[in-house]
Each structure stands twice: as structure tokens, then as C-alpha cells.
């Protein structure tokens, strides 16, 4: 019997805002414990929540980017449960009227090889809603301490339909989602800082079956790779359990252990939660009108895969190049700025993805520290195209550009690197080289094409690399023909 897995993901994304969801206090990470708090965050007696409009803007933008329907009216509900990281012992969330409904995320699976683009699929979403984050519990030997710095941070909960079938698809989904969030300025999605958290719902069923099997909720997935590995492990475990007819699968919550590479049941004292949801009487409903939608819609960036398609069509860039550019929006902006100066996208893209990234990495710098202006890259390509310098010299010029921030023209001028196409001078060198290397000449005459490269190299040496290699090639062949 063949089994297939059915996976749904619940992802929490912290929205990047100055202040918290319902209080003016600053949102942040890494501060001294219990300093990003105020009476509202701590749930002191008599305090009341006030909505952060920027957070609502951000979730609407997210919904628009992901093709969701934005609810014209939605409300807040209290999710009631006791836990020390929950200051009011209720969390303000959205229950039955979420702000975003449906939607989908385009994902790209890995190709057959690294250079080939994999299959594109769509992962349908059920909903996206807004809520406030809770604090963080730190457990020690004798006691546990709570830090409320995180409490009240705006949080989006994105729920997918159960439409994924493997750890790889989950990995692709999270990668795609993260790119959209980061490039859209919605969140930095740093999993180590808790800005993106993921729980998976996993079940298996015989292939061809349409009803869902017993569902396991998997938690403690702390990295995107962890999500993939945890899901893959769990799928295997469930299938094995069914095949071997061991203890039947039960609906439970399990914990992924990344070091040990296994899942285990979570020891929970809580019974099934009845959250006793009811509309929060301290907050007004939200009405999103077409004006609001339009103003936010105008701010949306291009989606990564739309950009990828545009780069294929408009610039004819290969996947090996786009796979480097597209995930990095500032790099794409840089690339497009250069192309605006000189319409040679492939050449410019090569310089960026090879040389620029190499230099940045070697020097431990990021793009914003880069001294090379996009226009300079364009200029460099132009110089090579115009035969002013050879492509080898260009590589040297690039290093200087990176170090100094000077334009390529300035550098070529200063260092006298102009390519020589002076046939007189070059002919003389060619004659010299032919005379001094009879064996290579003989090899060439006997049909060894490659022998000419040695001769070319000798000429280039004499010109300290500045000769135009095409011209040298022509001259050598002309001379050799005479022999």
C-alpha cells in the first residue's frame, strides 16, 4: 500500500512596526528583560488596548500581495487561556472574522540539478489574521522567569490549506513566504529572533484516498531546514506505524528534536482548550474601505517570482543568474539601475553575481557598504564592448573599482590600462614571438589549433595584458599563414 502525506502549515510572522499592537511602547528584541513594557502590556488593572494602524496596514498589504480577499469589516476577539507568558490571560486575536481570507503563495521546488529551475506550484491559504504576541518564558533549575518584552508585538497568523505533501514543499513554501515578507518590508522573518515561527499539521493516507488521516501537530520547528526535516521524519514515522500496525496513530501534539532527529509526544498538562472566544468589548471593529485598499495597493512591490519571470523574458537571464538575483531585492534594484545606464543585462548580471558578490563576501561586506555604483558596472561593460579594455583587464579594473569607488574610466586612465589595438606595435611583437617559438609554430602548422594560444599569451605578456586579444589573434594568424 502506498501512502501520501498531507501537510498544512501555521506560520506566525512578527510584523515590523515601531510600537506594539495595542500599546505605544516600543517593539523590539534583545533588550534588557521587562523594559519594553508599560501598564497596557503588563495588563495592569484599568488598562485598555488601542490599535496600531501601521500593523493593520502591513497585514492588508500582505493580504494584497498574497491574493487574499480583504474583509470589508472584521473584528477582534479574546482568546481566553491562562499561561504565565500571557499577561491578561487572554490574547487579543481574530476568531471568526479574520482580516484576510483565502489567498495563495507561489513556491518553487528544487530542480533536477542546481542549475535547473524546479517546478512551480501554488499553496492555497485559508486565512491570515492579526493578533498580539505573548511574552517569553525562560526555564531554570528551580523556577521559571517571564520576560514580557515580546508581549504585545503585532503578529500575523498565516494558515495554509492542507495542500503540501512533503518536507521539500514546506521548505519551498517558507522560503517563498519569507522572501515576500522581507522584500515587502513586512517583517525581517529572522527565525532565531522569533520573527517567524512555524507549526506543522501532518497526516498520511493511502494514495487515492480523499479524506484526511489522523492529524499530528508538530512543534519546536526552529529553522526552515528543521521544518523540512521534522516533517519528513514524521511522515516516515506515521507511515511506518500504519504499516506495522503498531499502536494506532492518535491525534496529538509532538515535538521535533533537531539534535536527535526524531519527534516525541509533548507532555502537556492542558486538556483540549476551550478558548471561550468572544468579541473584545474594548475595541471597535475595523472597516476597510476601497480608498484604504487603493492607497496600500499603490505601495506594493513586485513579487519575487513575477520578477523572475520578467528577468527571463525581458533580459533573457538564465536561471543560474536569476536564482542568485531574485531572492535579494536590493541586489535586483542595483542590477536594474545598472541596466538603465547601459542595456546589456546579461553582461551586467554576470559581473554582479560573480565578481561583485565574490568581492563583498571576501571582504565581509554587504551590498549597502559597496563602493561601486550601479552606473559604474554599466560603464565597465561599455568599455569592454567598445574594445577600450580587454575582458581580462576589466577583471583587474573591477578590483580597483571595489576598493576605491572610482569609476572604471578614471581607473583605466590613471593606470594606463587601455587596450592596445595598435597593429604596428602588435605586429612587431607577433613577429618576435613567432621567431622565438618555433616549436609552437610548427605545432600550429601541423593542425594543433591550441598552439596559437601559447603564442597569443606571449604577445599579451609583452604588452602586459593590454593588447586586444582579437587583434593579436588576427595578426598572428596572418603571419603564420605566410609561413
Amino acid at each position, binding site marked *: 500500500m502506498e501512502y501520501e502525506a498531507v501537510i498544512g502549515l501555521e506560520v506566525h510572522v512578527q510584523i515590523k512596526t515601531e510600537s506594539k499592537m495595542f500599546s505605544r511602547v516600543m517593539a523590539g528584541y534583545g533588550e534588557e528583560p521587562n523594559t519594553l513594557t508599560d*501598564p497596557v502590556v*503588563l*495588563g*495592569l*488593572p*484599568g*488598562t*485598555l*488596548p*488601542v*490599535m496600531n494602524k501601521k500593523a493593520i496596514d502591513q497585514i492588508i498589504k500582505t493580504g494584497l500581495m498574497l491574493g487574499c480577499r480583504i474583509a470589508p469589516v472584521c473584528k477582534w476577539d*479574546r482568546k*481566553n487561556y*491562562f499561561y*504565565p507568558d500571557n*499577561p*491578561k*490571560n*487572554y490574547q487579543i486575536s481574530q476568531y471568526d472574522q479574520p482580516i484576510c481570507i483565502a489567498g495563495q503563495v507561489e513556491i518553487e521546488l528544487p530542480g533536477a540539478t542546481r542549475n535547473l529551475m524546479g517546478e512551480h506550484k501554488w499553496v492555497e491559504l485559508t486565512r491570515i489574521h492579526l493578533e498580539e504576541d505573548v511574552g517569553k518564558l525562560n526555564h531554570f533549575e528551580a523556577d*521559571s522567569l*517571564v520576560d514580557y518584552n515580546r508581549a504585545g508585538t503585532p503578529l500575523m497568523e498565516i494558515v495554509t490549506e492542507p495542500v503540501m505533501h512533503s518536507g521539500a514543499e514546506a521548505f519551498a513554501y517558507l522560503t517563498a513566504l519569507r522572501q515576500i515578507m522581507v522584500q515587502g518590508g513586512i517583517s525581517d522573518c529572522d527565525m532565531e529572533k522569533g520573527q517567524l515561527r512555524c507549526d506543522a499539521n501532518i497526516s498520511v493516507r493511502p494514495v487515492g484516498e480523499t479524506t484526511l488521516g489522523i492529524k499530528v501537530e508538530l512543534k519546536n520547528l526552529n529553522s526552515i531546514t528543521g521544518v523540512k526535516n521534522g516533517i519528513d521524519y514524521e511522515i516516515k514515522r506515521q507511515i511506518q506505524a500504519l504499516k506495522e500496525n503498531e499502536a494506532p496513530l492518535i491525534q496529538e501534539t509532538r515535538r521535533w528534536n533537531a539534535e536527535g532527529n526524531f519527534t516525541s509526544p509533548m507532555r502537556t*498538562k492542558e486538556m483540549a482548550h*476551550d478558548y*471561550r472566544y*468572544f468579541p473584545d*468589548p*474594548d*475595541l*471597535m471593529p475595523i472597516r476597510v474601505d476601497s480608498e484604504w485598499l487603493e492607497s496600500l495597493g499603490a505601495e506594493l512591490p513586485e513579487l519575487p517570482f513575477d520578477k523572475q519571470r520578467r528577468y527571463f523574458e525581458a533580459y533573457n537571464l538564465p536561471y543560474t543568474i536569476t536564482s542568485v538575483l531574485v531572492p535579494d531585492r536590493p541586489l535586483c534594484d542595483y542590477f536594474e539601475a545598472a541596466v538603465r545606464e547601459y542595456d546589456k543585462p546579461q553582461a551586467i548580471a554576470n559581473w554582479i553575481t560573480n565578481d561583485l558578490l565574490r568581492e563583498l563576501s571576501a571582504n565581509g561586506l554587504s551590498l549597502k557598504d559597496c563602493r561601486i555604483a550601479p552606473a559604474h558596472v554599466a560603464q565597465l561593460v561599455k568599455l569592454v564592448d567598445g574594445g577600450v579594455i580587454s575582458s581580462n583587464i576589466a577583471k583587474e579594473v573591477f578590483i580597483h573599482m571595489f576598493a576605491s569607488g572610482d569609476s572604471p574610466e578614471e581607473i583605466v586612465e590613471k593606470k594606463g590600462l587601455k587596450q592596445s589595438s595598435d597593429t604596428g606595435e602588435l605586429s612587431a611583437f607577433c613577429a618576435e614571438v613567432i621567431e622565438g617559438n618555433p616549436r609552437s609554430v610548427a605545432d600550429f602548422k601541423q593542425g594543433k589549433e591550441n598552439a596559437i594560444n601559447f603564442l597569443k599569451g606571449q604577445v599579451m605578456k609583452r604588452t602586459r595584458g593590454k593588447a586586444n586579444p582579437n587583434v593579436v589573434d588576427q595578426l598572428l594568424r596572418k603571419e603564420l599563414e605566410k609561413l
Partner: protein
Amino acid sequence: MNVPLHYQTAAGLSRKLAENEVSSEELVRAVIERTRTVDADVGAFLSWNEEDALAQARASDKRREEGKTLGPLDGIPVGIKDILAVKGQPLTCASKMLENFVSPYDATCIEKLKNGGAVLWGRLNMDEFAMGSSTENSSFKTTSNPWDTTRIPGGSSGGSAACVAAGEAVLSLGSDTGGSVRQPAALCGVVGMKPTYGLVSRYGLVAFASSLDQIGPVAHTVEDAALLLRQIAGHDVRDSTSYKTEVPDYPVEMRNRKGPWKLGVPREYFGEGLDPEVERAVQSAIDFYRNEGCEIVDVSLPHTDYAVATYYIIATAEASSNLARYDGVRYTHRSSATKDAIDLYFQSRAEGFGQEVKRRIILGTYVLSSGYYDAYYLRAQKVRTLIRNDFMKAYETVDALITPTSPSPAFKKGEKTADPLAMYLSDIYTIGANLAGLPGISVPCGFSRNKLPIGLQVIGKPFAEADLFAIAARFEEAHGYAKMHPVLPGNASAVDHPV
């Protein structure tokens, strides 16, 4: 007749302060002295700080000297129900759960009082977390009705009403969720009102039932109540349920409205359960208005019978959630004998909350729980809409409604504590205004045979407080009740007027 300082009106005292006939320090000393004398019997206060009050008074006098008076309430002592946050002062809500809690911030209404130079005086007793109609649910002490100290003052703002009635403050603030300002005001023979929901910011009011709570003034006269309301009303960004509206100059507006008015008498408020003496006093008041040229219209609020049940479902549901934060983790009473986190919650809440609070939390949790939400909470919210519709329909033909405030005068201590339901029914006439979000005022309109005050309630249209004040003031100025004060044991002054 020389009325002692502690029984004079805020309006009158304001003029005297302005004319330097009296200083704030003298006034506050008089109030302190009065409190020291009578509070052993009245028990309106949970705590007070004389040095702090005198410092505020001296600051007021200094401002006056420099010509920098902040307004008509500058220098006037206002008692504060122990449910309103005042920075640096206890905020116990009469509960063991908050026995040692000191508020680090000011409620908006307190900020507004401070901006007006008012002298904040003491922390007033109440039913624990505002749950009750007699102040007998306070975890710390009982408050007595100043007119008969064997009886209750009403609740939950029993301390607020008793303190003004006994002359222990010139004004006070209470909170009203189901009648908790109006009913004790009626039972103590003073004026108490609840504004339209949303008029006064709830930021800093410890929440009991978020969709019903409002802060309200208690005073000797309607004009004084109007003065105090003007100071605390207004939109507040910190309260998302606060309404964006201009605050009228109530004391001026009420004088501009001369009537006559069309007054509705809801027949459902005059049936079974109403004490005949209360009924007589209220009918007499209705006759007074009729003689003043007002048209008295018989109206019906057909869903009145469902009001108490609707209230006790919605209020307890919201309360069960609002009180969840009191858990022993951060700032409340924390039980010492606990094994783990769950136990910490169980024990701290078991020890910290009183019986009535527990009863309502359990009830509220039940009506929100899975399987019961639709039948109870959701249904109650729908009935609430019907109740509001009843009022709004009546207001198509009348300007305001006249009713009794409380079905009976003050009952004896312990009389209703055995039967919570009987206690709940004390709210029967006040609850409708909370459910519908409407303003209501109680003004003294008579006494029972055993000299217990009886209150007349006027319920108005949304944001029509100026009309309410005008209608109530018309009755008040034609009768002498505002000048009547209880005789209290240990009282040296011969000026108190026995009835």
C-alpha cells in the same frame, strides 16, 4: 442657617474660594475633621492620607494666590472609589487580590481632576471588583448607610455615596455598571449619575464589564454633579470605546433648558416588587412634573423582564475575562503554598477573591464556554439589542423617562446576603440604562416612614446629559432634599437636619 463647610455645595464653595472667604486648606481640614469624627460609624473609606490631601490643598491656595486657578473645582475635595487608578495610591478594588497594589499611573478621569486642581481625597469602600449592590462584598470592611447605620448604603459605590451623604467629601466619583452609582446615591439621599456609555474614558477604571462600565459623579446637588461631569468627560485616545464628541458646558446648558418636557413613565417599572412607599414618592414626583407643564406619557419597555438575566450573562462573561489577569504571577496576591504554576493560579485566586466574585467568574466562564455560548452569551447580546430598541422607540415620543431608582429604600445589613438572586433584583430599574448605554441620574425625592431616602431616576437619550440635569434640577430646586443631611453619632454640629 449656617451650613458647615463639609456640607456645602461645590458650586458655593467654588465661589467662596474665589472670593477668599475660605481657603482650600480650611475646607480640606474641615473635611478631614469630619471624616475622623464620623467614619468610624460610616466606614466609607478604606484608606486616606491627610498629609497628601493638605499638600494638595496648599498647592491650590498657592495657585489661587498667584491668580492661576485651574477651574471651579480647584481646591475642592473629591472622594475616589478604590477602583480608579491614582498614581502612587492604593488600588485595591476592596479585594484581597489587590490588597498591596499601588497604581503606577493615573486614570484619565484622575488626570482631568488633577488638571482642574481638585483635591483627591481617600480611597472609598466598594463591593469587591464592583460586584454587588450593598458594599457588603468588600473584603475589608462594611460601609453603613449614614441615615441608619444598621443598613447598607447600596453598592457597589457604597463608599462614594455614603461619604458625600455624611459630609466626608464635597463630591465623589464612583463607577456604574448596573446601577452602582445611582442606586447607592438613592439609598443615601444624594445625587448620583451615570453618563452615556463612551462619554467618560474608562482608561484607569478597573474593568468589571467593559461594555457596561462608566464612571459617574456623586454630589449633593444636580449642579455639582454637572460640574464634576464636565471635568471628567471627553474623548480619550487611550480608550477605544470613548466617543468623539464635544463636551457641553453642563452647568450652563442645564440652566438654558427650561422645558417643559415630555416624560415617559414605563409601566413595567411600576409593577411587582416595588415598595409602596417608593412608588408613592415617585408618583408624587411625576405629579410635580405634570403640574410644571410636562406631558406625562405612559410608555412600555416590553423587554424589561429580561434585563436582569441579560445583564448577568453579559456582565459576568466580560468579568470572567477581565479578572483573569489577577493570577498571582505579576502584581497580585500570590499564595505561598503552591507546587507548580497551575497550583499558583488555583491557590492565589482561591485566596484572593471573595465569594461573589468567584460566583460571577464561574457564571461568566460557563456562559462563554463551548456548547453554551450560543444559548447564553450570544442570545443575551441579541436581547440586549431589543432592550435598547425599546428605549429608542420610547424616545420617539418622549424626551426622557421617569422611574424609581431602587425598588426599596436601604435594607438591613445581612438581609439579602443569603440570596444572591434577591440581591441582583435590586438593580432592576438601573440595569436597563447600562444595557442600552444611556445616561441616567438619581435625585432624592422623599423619605420612607423610617426616614430612609428614596431616589427618583431620570433616564435620557444618548449624550443628552444636559437635558437630564435640567429635568432633575427642576425637581430639586422645588424641593428641599438637597439640604437634608443625616444625623450621625459623634457629630458635634447641631446643624445637621434630621428629617
